[in-house]
């Protein structure tokens, strides 16, 4: 089983940190450095905590709250 992890696309992220607020297990945390676009993008601090990361990539995701909420469509899955 190949674990997946969420990733943030810095060309879309505007640093609103709502993903940090909504994630129930603390995957995200407020970032420190500025992206090329000029926003302070969150850091994926604890990808291993992500409920859906423990699934097979083809399996239907159960959480995805961050993807649902991200106003800039900046979060997606990335296979390792």
């Amino acid at each position: 089983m190949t674990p997946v992890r969420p990733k943030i696309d810095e060309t879309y992220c505007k640093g609103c940190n709502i993903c940090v607020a909504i994630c129930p297990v603390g995957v995200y945390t407020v970032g420190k450095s500025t992206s090329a676009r000029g926003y302070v993008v969150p850091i994926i601090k604890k990808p291993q905590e992500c409920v859906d990361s423990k699934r097979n990539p083809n399996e239907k995701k159960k959480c995805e709250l961050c993807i649902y909420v991200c106003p800039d469509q900046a979060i997606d899955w990335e296979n390792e």
Partner: protein
Amino acid sequence: MNFFDFYRQDRWPHMFCPGCGVGTVMNTFYRAFAESGLDQNKTVFVAGIGCSGRIPGYIRADSLHTTHGRPLAFAGGIKVANPKLKVVVFTGDGDLGAIGGNHFINACRRNIELTVICINNYIYGMTGGQASTTTPRDLLSSTTPFGNREYPFDLSEVAVAAGANYVARWTTFHVKQMTKSMHKALLKDGLSFVEIASQCPTQFGRRNDLNSAREVFDWLKSNSVPRSKARDLSEDHLDLNLMGKITVGEFVERNRESYMKAIGVMK
């Protein structure tokens, strides 16, 4: 259906402010639509004026961006003239609850088969932060610099009273429930009204001591309460300030005859 099958990729990144709840509504609506099985070629999106009204310009479908307050009137004309088209309306608290109030209550009364998504950010965002008919009392806006002296509308309760077949309200925190309600709204007969309490960090938040998108988001989340819990007999019905709470949930689900059936354009 992928996200950019539904939306116009050539117009990305979109225009909405950092942390704006409209972006969240775009996600949830797309998912609700993708699961509905509706034909995007046979769906028309009608928008009013304001930030929420900009959504249809981003959707890969026929869309009509109309005059302020009137999308329900235009939408009614489209639906009645060609009942085979699915018609979805995107509107906001000012567009629907102020200038569009008359069309709002009459469309609900007629129960015209429309799916109405109202993004309520408690302010007039596009024009720079003026008070709305849903701005809670005492809050600040650019036209209420000393505190709002008026009490707000509860748009969802208005929709219930006016006769809409399906009424639900969620905040942008309640993404899963919101998606489910939108999905129901898309497939239900008659007028379906889904109100989304949404964060406007730039105009609403900034003026009311909520100094980031996260803070407004948390404000919505912590002030929301299930309607079933809030509306009991002990509550003061005259307190139009909603007891300082945003009631959420499915408010009503009924099967009144839809307008199209009543006037005979649809069997």
